[in-house]
């Protein structure tokens, strides 16, 4: 081969090297301008026989290339490695120079009816391994990236999710109160409507209601217990006995109600507080 041909080959090689280097630098620069993460805590819920996982996330793609074919696969395994449930979620494409903020709501369907109950028991009593695998194509599909994370779901993480579900699915409406006079003194009969849209029944629901005036003094209190609350609506009433000292010396004006709630759900005990203003009750 002559020196001229070697020079031509040298020019071709240099050209291809420059193109390849430019492409690789553009990929690396683009990948550096991609950021992602979680916005809040991950919610793990037991809903309608399935495990629902809600992951709030964001992806900022400030690079030159689209992130394509984004797929996220979840799998739950017990301590022996047996697959309990799995789910595949497709997010599609995240275009270049765009931001994507969303919730990744994955429902893990137990693989058999037997596992349905078994999974519930496991989540209550022992940790379960959650395997999350994400895959995507990048840089005109020249690169494929797969990331795999293994985390352990503990009963406490499930309890945290259940409390969020409980406070979201449970609501209290107070009806029109009526005055009562009996041997104990002045009392108010307050109708209470309990609405529950959750799936698991609530047990040992205790409501302790305190009526306060505008200065924050407790002018009366009452409480009830509901042994079991199934999804739906029930009507109960609470007798509020007025504080005798206040009733004797001054006119009693209720400004708001503070309700202390205790309940058992899925074997976990929860406590939370709700505030309702008197105006809301009067308007109803």
């Amino acid at each position: 081969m002559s020196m001229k041909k070697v020079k031509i080959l040298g020019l071709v090689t240099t050209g291809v090297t420059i193109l390849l280097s430019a492409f690789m630098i553009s990929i690396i620069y683009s990948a550096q301008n991609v950021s992602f993460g979680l916005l809040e805590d991950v919610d793990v819920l037991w809903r309608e026989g399935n495990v629902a996982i809600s992951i709030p996330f964001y992806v900022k793609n400030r690079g030159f290339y689209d992130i394509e074919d984004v797929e996220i696969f979840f799998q739950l395994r017990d301590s022996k490695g047996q697959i309990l449930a799995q789910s595949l979620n497709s997010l599609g494409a995240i275009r270049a120079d765009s931001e994507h903020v969303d919730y990744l709501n994955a429902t893990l369907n137990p693989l058999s009816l037997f596992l349905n109950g078994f999974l519930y028991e496991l989540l209550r009593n022992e940790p379960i391994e959650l395997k999350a695998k994400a895959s995507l194509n990048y840089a005109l599909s020249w690169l494929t990236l797969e990331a795999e994370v293994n985390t352990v779901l503990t009963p406490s993480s499930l309890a945290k999710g259940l409390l969020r579900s409980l406070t979201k699915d449970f609501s209290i409406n107070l009806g029109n109160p009526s005055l009562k006079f009996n041997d104990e003194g002045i009392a108010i009969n307050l109708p209470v409507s309990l609405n529950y849209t959750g799936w698991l029944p609530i047990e040992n629901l205790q409501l302790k209601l305190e009526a306060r005036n505008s200065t924050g003094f407790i002018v009366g209190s009452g409480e009830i217990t509901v042994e079991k609350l199934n999804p739906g609506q029930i009507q109960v009433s609470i007798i509020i006995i007025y504080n005798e000292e206040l009733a004797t010396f001054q006119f009693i004006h209720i400004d708001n109600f503070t309700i202390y709630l205790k309940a058992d759900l899925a074997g976990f005990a929860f406590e939370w507080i709700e505030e309702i203003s008197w105006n809301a009750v009067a308007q109803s």
Partner: protein
Amino acid sequence: MTHKIPDLTSKIARAFGTPRLDLKRVPEALIVPACYMILFYHLNLLVSTYLPGSNLIDLRLALILSALAITRTIFKESLISALAGLASVALMFNFLYQAGSLNQFGIIRTQTSVVTVTLKFQSLLMIILFVMILKTLLYTLEIIENSKVSQSVNL
């Protein structure tokens, strides 16, 4: 009886060529090492961002590749230039091998305590290897051409 005294000085001079301090070569001598440094620096930054604790990228390799590229530019059209080129190809091949991409053709798997990341780039690796083959061919031909010139000068 005659004694042949080999003219080693001239042979070495022909093989290694004369370094030419041509100002036109200064940009070339700067651009290629700069490209290597930028590429490896950003690659290192990317790896340390997404895979903290991973030592996939060694910046010393970028320095050696830069030194070889400068050598190639200075000793242009000589045997040492072709040898420096071959050495850079060998180093790059070694880097790909060390990174694990050649064991499972175009698949790099790295693992930290939390996450396992697998990068697949088979098509890109084929192009990289094609360029490396081209370069190897080019440098081999340069060595052959330089040898021919040396032989003809000897004759």
